[in-house]
């Protein structure tokens, strides 16, 4: 090695070592501190700062993306339109029947005082301003935070069904872990048989339902909804439809797959379910 390049190599090594020391120090401090520690506060503050910029970019990009998607799906659109027209006719008939059932249902609810418990849940609308910056998490950044009453562990939904739960909150932004994230687990039940279980995300488009009982009565086409256990989400929020029920080769347990109703790639607005003290409920359960 020439003598002149030796000091440069040493300088490079020193810079690299300094960067590594800074990274290790930041990692150690972050892991050791609580959720209200200074690094977590910096993270939340930065999220508040970045979310409007991300939101502006997302607004510009979304129409371009929709244009591409429409172009790709052009051949199937006319078939889809025919199918939708048929469905509208069926739903119109169904609507008439539903009105009768609704009247009957509201009468029963009144008798059970169910409405009183539901009244405590308020909904807050929020725009999606960003998504997870890597392939290994399924997250969304919302335009609303603690200043709108949002707290950690609150449920998030749309008119299509459950989206996920809040895992981090800044004053004007929050991060939602989608139900498809591999670390997500939601208390759920079968709408028909009332069998309860846990609905796990798998970082894909399909969810896995783990029923409490091995011989649970589950069929393809059953609707899965929140069970309300856990306190973050009210019961009865629809999640998806059972797409397959397979018996594992060991014969001990069944593999139940659920396709969520929410089209996560097309979301731009969501509703946060304002529940009273969701964090304390989670902590109480953990204890």
């Amino acid at each position, binding site marked *: 090695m020439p003598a002149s390049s030796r000091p440069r190599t040493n*300088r*490079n090594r020193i*810079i*690299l070592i300094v*960067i*590594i020391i*800074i*990274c*290790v*120090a*930041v*990692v150690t401090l*972050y*892991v050791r501190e609580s959720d209200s520690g200074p*690094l977590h506060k*910096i*993270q939340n503050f*930065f*999220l508040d700062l*970045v979310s409007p*910029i*991300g*939101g502006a*970019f*997302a607004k510009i*990009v*979304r129409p371009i*993306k929709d244009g591409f998607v429409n172009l790709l799906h052009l051949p199937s659109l006319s078939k889809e339109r025919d199918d939708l027209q048929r469905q509208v006719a069926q739903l119109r008939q169904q609507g008439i029947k539903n009105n009768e059932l609704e009247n009957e249902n509201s009468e029963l609810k009144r008798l059970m005082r169910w409405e009183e418990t539901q009244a405590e849940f308020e909904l807050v609308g929020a725009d999606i*301003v*960003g*998504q*997870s*910056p*890597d*392939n*290994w*998490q399924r*997250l969304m*950044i919302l335009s609303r935070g603690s200043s709108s009453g949002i707290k950690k562990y609150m449920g998030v939904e749309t008119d299509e069904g459950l989206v996920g739960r809040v*895992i*981090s909150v800044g004053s004007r932004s929050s*991060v939602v872990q989608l139900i498809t994230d*591999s*670390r997500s687990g939601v208390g759920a039940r079968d709408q028909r048989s009332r069998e309860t279980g846990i609905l796990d995300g*798998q*970082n*894909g488009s399909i969810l896995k339902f783990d029923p409490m009982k091995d011989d649970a009565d589950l069929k393809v086409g059953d609707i899965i909804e929140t069970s309300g256990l856990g306190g973050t989400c009210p019961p009865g929020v629809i999640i998806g439809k059972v797409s397959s029920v397979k018996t594992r080769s060991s014969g001990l347990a069944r593999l139940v797959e659920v396709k969520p109703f929410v089209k996560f*790639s097309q979301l731009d607005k969501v509703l946060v379910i304002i529940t009273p003290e969701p964090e304390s409920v989670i902590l109480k359960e953990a204890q």
Partner: protein
Amino acid sequence: MSRNRRIFLAIVVVLAFVLQLSVFPQFKLLGAQPDLILVVSIVVAVTDGPVAGAIVGFFGGMLQDIASPQVMGVSALTKTLAAFMAGMLKDFFMTYSILLPVLLVFFLTFFELFLHQGVLLVLGQEQLPPLNAATIFASALYNVLLTFIIYPLLRRFRFPVKEESLSMAKRA
């Protein structure tokens, strides 16, 4: 490295971060999104040397860590090491062909990912995201595609030091 080049690279890192957060999640390829910050760090390491790449990797990774609820500092560490390694390997091969950054980006995508998982494992993170071979491969390919755009762009804006200032420096 000239002052203009430093300012240019700082703008590139911030822009890459904003695109990573808001644009690329909308344009997934085979279910995967690219890691633009990693691509920029590796390309800078190839064009400007290992230290410049490491510094870009550090700041880009730190931005990524701060903007998502994950352990702060892990992406900064893994991207710094991946970029530094790219710069060292470039010095070893001594070529200006685009094939070198393309190959470095492809293989270092795997390296950075496994290092990231390894660090999280050492930290005792209970729920590690599952590694999916198809997603990793698709992500590496996506990164390679971006390299074909980023490498010529970063090589084009070199902002060479002016002749006058060079001669002044020589006189001094």
